[in-house]
C-alpha cells in the first residue's frame, strides 16, 4: 500500500497521535500500545469490556468466581469470526495460552493465571495460583482470535477477529482501513468503514481536521487547542484522561533516599501555577499518584508551593547550598514534556538545586530507566485498565524496584489489594497506597492530562474516552 489508498466513501477518518505498527493481538511490543489497542478493540472482542467505570459483558455473557482461585466464564453463543468460523471456548483457551507464551508488558498480568480449560463449547474456567481479583479487568486486554490463528504471523497484517470491523487494508505506521462487519453479534456499527491514518506532524493533522480531510483527531496538544477551537466546522470534546505526568526520584541514589529532600523538591515547584500556565485546560492538577477517575484514587493534601520552606528543608538535610542532579525524559512521552521539565528545572534552580536537563531518545531512556541509571525521571503513564492495580500495584512494589523505593508496609497493602475481589475493598486499599506514596513523595505528580478530541461537526454518538480509546463503532454521521 502506498499513500494513494484513499479511504472509502463514508468512512470515518480518525487520526490518533501515534502510529499503529502491528495488529497481532499477542505481539509483545504492542501489548499495551494505545494506538494499537484502539484498532484491536474494533477488530477483536474480549470476554469482558469496560463501559465507563464499569465492567460489562463482552464475549462472555456472564462470569462467576467459584472459588478464590477459580473463575467460570460463559460465552455468548452464535458468535462468528470474520472468516465465518464459530467462536468456542477452545479459542479462548488457545488465546490465553498464546498470550502467556509471549514475553510482553502484559506478562505480569497473566503470571498468576495457571490455566484455562474449556468445560464445554461455551464455558471456560480460569484457575489462578493466588486469588486474583483483577482477572475480569485483565481480561479486557485478552483479545480472542480463532485458535488456529493464535500464533499465525499473518495476524500482524490481516488479522481475523470477531469485532465490529474487519481489516480491509493496513500499512504499518501509516494507515489502517477497516470495514464494517455486517454480521456482528452486537449489532452493526453505524458507519460503513473507519480509516485511521497516522499523521505525525501536529500542524498537518490540525490542518487536515480543519479542512475536513479528517473527521476526528486526538489528542490535540494543549497549545494547539486554540487553533482547533477557533475553526469552523470543528468542535472539541474533552475528558480527563487516565494519562498522567509524574517525575520520579531515584530513591536509591543520593540525595533522594531522604524523603525530606524529595518533599523539599516538591515544595520548590509551583505545581498549581505551572499546570495552569502551561497546560491551561489541557490538564488537571493531580491530588494522588493516579488520576482522579481511576479506581483506587484517594485525594491527598497537595504540597504547597513554598520555596523558602524547601530551602530550609534542604539545609536541614545537609544541602545548604543545594546540589546538582539531573532529570531525564524523552520528548515524545507527552505533550509539553520538554516545557514541563524545563519549568520544573527552572523552579529547582531557585532553591539552589541545579538540574541537568537530559532529553534523550526513547530507546536510551528505556534502557536507563530499566537499569535505574538516572536521578530523576519525567514521564507519562496511562492507567490502561482504569484500575489502580495497573499502575500503583505494578510500579511501586519492592520487587518491581522501579525507582529504588522499597517499603514493606506498602508491599503488604498492595498484595492484599491484588487479591481482593471486592471492588470497594480494593479501592480502599489502593487509597491507602496513594497516601503512602504521596506522603513519601516518591515522585512529583503534577498533572493528569485532559484529552481533547477534535471532531467535525456532524459526527454523533461520540463519547470521549479517558483511556484515549474511544468507541468508534458507535460514531455516526448526521
Amino acid at each position: 500500500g502506498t499513500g494513494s489508498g484513499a479511504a472509502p466513501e463514508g468512512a470515518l477518518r480518525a487520526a490518533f497521535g501515534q502510529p499503529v505498527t502491528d495488529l497481532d493481538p499477542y505481539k509483545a511490543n504492542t501489548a499495551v500500545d494505545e494506538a494499537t489497542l484502539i484498532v484491536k478493540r474494533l477488530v477483536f472482542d474480549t470476554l469482558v469490556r469496560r463501559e465507563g467505570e464499569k465492567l460489562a459483558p463482552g464475549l462472555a455473557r456472564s462470569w462467576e468466581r467459584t472459588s478464590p482461585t477459580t473463575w467460570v466464564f460463559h460465552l455468548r453463543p452464535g458468535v462468528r469470526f470474520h472468516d465465518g468460523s464459530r467462536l468456542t471456548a477452545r479459542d479462548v483457551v488457545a488465546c490465553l495460552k498464546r498470550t502467556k507464551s509471549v514475553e510482553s508488558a502484559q506478562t505480569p498480568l497473566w503470571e498468576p493465571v495457571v490455566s484455562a480449560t474449556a468445560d464445554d463449547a461455551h464455558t471456560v474456567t480460569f484457575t489462578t495460583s493466588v486469588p486474583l481479583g483483577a482477572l475480569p479487568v485483565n481480561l479486557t486486554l485478552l483479545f480472542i482470535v480463532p485458535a488456529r490463528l493464535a500464533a499465525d504471523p499473518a495476524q500482524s497484517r490481516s488479522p481475523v477477529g470477531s469485532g465490529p470491523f474487519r481489516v480491509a487494508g493496513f500499512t504499518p505506521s501509516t494507515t489502517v482501513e477497516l470495514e464494517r462487519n455486517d454480521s456482528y453479534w452486537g449489532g452493526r456499527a453505524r458507519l460503513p468503514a473507519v480509516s485511521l491514518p497516522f499523521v505525525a506532524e501536529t500542524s498537518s493533522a490540525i490542518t487536515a481536521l480543519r479542512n475536513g480531510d479528517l473527521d476526528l483527531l486526538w489528542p490535540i496538544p494543549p497549545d494547539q487547542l486554540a487553533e482547533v477551537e477557533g475553526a469552523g466546522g470543528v468542535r472539541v470534546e474533552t475528558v480527563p484522561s487516565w494519562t498522567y505526568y509524574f517525575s520520579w526520584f531515584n530513591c536509591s541514589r543520593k540525595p533522594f533516599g531522604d524523603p525530606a529532600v524529595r518533599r523539599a523538591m516538591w515544595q520548590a515547584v509551583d505545581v498549581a501555577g505551572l499546570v495552569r500556565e502551561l497546560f491551561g485546560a489541557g490538564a488537571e492538577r493531580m491530588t494522588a499518584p493516579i488520576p482522579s477517575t481511576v479506581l483506587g484514587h484517594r485525594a491527598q493534601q497537595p504540597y504547597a508551593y513554598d520555596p523558602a520552606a524547601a530551602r530550609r528543608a534542604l539545609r536541614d538535610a545537609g544541602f545548604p547550598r543545594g546540589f546538582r542532579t539531573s532529570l531525564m525524559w524523552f520528548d515524545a512521552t507527552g505533550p509539553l514534556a520538554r516545557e514541563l521539565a524545563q519549568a520544573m528545572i527552572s523552579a529547582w534552580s531557585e532553591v539552589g538545586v541545579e538540574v541537568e536537563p537530559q532529553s534523550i531518545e526513547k530507546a536510551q531512556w528505556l534502557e536507563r530507566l530499566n537499569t535505574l541509571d538516572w536521578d530523576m525521571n519525567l514521564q507519562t503513564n496511562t492507567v490502561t485498565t482504569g484500575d489502580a492495580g495497573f499502575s500503583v500495584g505494578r510500579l511501586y512494589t519492592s520487587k518491581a524496584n522501579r525507582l529504588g523505593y522499597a517499603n514493606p508496609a506498602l508491599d503488604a497493602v498492595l498484595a492484599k489489594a491484588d487479591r481482593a475481589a471486592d471492588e470497594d475493598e480494593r479501592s480502599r486499599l489502593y487509597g491507602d497506597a496513594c497516601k503512602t506514596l504521596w506522603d513519601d513523595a516518591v515522585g512529583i505528580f503534577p498533572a493528569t492530562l485532559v484529552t481533547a478530541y477534535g471532531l467535525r461537526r456532524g459526527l454523533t454518538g461520540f463519547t470521549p474516552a479517558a483511556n484515549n480509546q474511544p468507541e468508534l463503532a458507535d460514531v455516526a454521521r448526521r
Partner: protein
Amino acid sequence: MTRFLLRRTGQALIVAWGAISLVFVIVRVVPGDPAALILGPDASPAQTASVRADFGLDRPLAQQYVTHLGEVVRGDFGDSWRLGGSAMANTLDRYPATLTLAVLALVLTLAVGFPLGMACARRAGGVLDACVSALSLVGQALPSFWVGIVLILLFARGLNWLPSTAGSGLASAVLPAVTLAVPFVGWLARLVRNGALEEGGREYVRTARAKGTGEGVLQYVHVGRNIAVPVVTVLGLLLGNFVANAVIVEVVFSWPGIGSLMVDAITNRDYAVVEAAIVTITVTYIVLNLLVDALYFALDPRLTPENA
C-alpha cells in the same frame, strides 16, 4: 563497455558492502536495546535476555556480522520486530511512495530550474539572475521541515488548495514534492546558468552564430545539448538525494515512504528494517550512478568507456 560495466559493478559491490557493514556496526553501537523497547518498562532481566537471544543479539558482534552478511547475500535482512514480516518486504512496500515523491520532485526541479537557468544565462547580471542566485541560496537556507509546515499552513490550511497529508493520491504528493524541490530549483538554475554561460563562451557557439543560427536554437539545441551531461549527472545525484533525504519531508507530510519508515525504525532500534532500508537506498544511489554513467556515453560522444 562490458569491461567498464564490470569494473563499475565491482566498485558498486564494494560500496554496497561498505554501506552494509557501516550500518551494521553503527546501529549496534547506538545505545538502546531493542529488547527493552519490545518489552517496555516492566521487563525483567530474564525476559530481556530471552528476547535478545531470539534476535541473536547475545552472540559476539563478529559472529553476528558474518551471519548477517550471509543472509544479506540472500536478500534476507531478518524480520522487523516492530512491524512484523520481513524487513525487506516492509521496505519494498514503502519504496514506491518514496520513489513517486522523488521523481515528482525531480520533474519539478527540472521543469522550473532548467528554463530559469537558461533565462538567467541569457541576461547574465540582470535582475532575474540576481533574484535567482539569491533564491537559490535562500532555498537551501531554510530547513525543509519549516518550509513544509509553512507550505501546509499556506496552501492547505489557508487556501485549502491541496491536502496536508497523504491519502489523496497525487494531489497529496504535490506539497511534499515542492518542499523537496525548493532547495534545488535555484541550485539547478544556477548550474544551468553557469553551464550555459561557460558553454556560451565556447567557440562552437560563435561558429554557430556565424552561420546565422538564432539565439533560441543556439541556447536550447547547441548549448543545451552540451550542458546535458553535467545536468544529467546532477539530476542522477539529485534523485538519489531525494530518495535518501526525503526523511524529513516524509515525516512532516506523513508520507508513507522509506524515509519515515527509517526514522521510525531507528528510533525503535528495529535493526533489520534500518539495514534493509539503508541498503535499499544505497543500492538505489549506486544504480542511479551507474545509469548516469551509462547516460554519459549516450550524451557525450567524446566519452568512451576507456577514457571515462
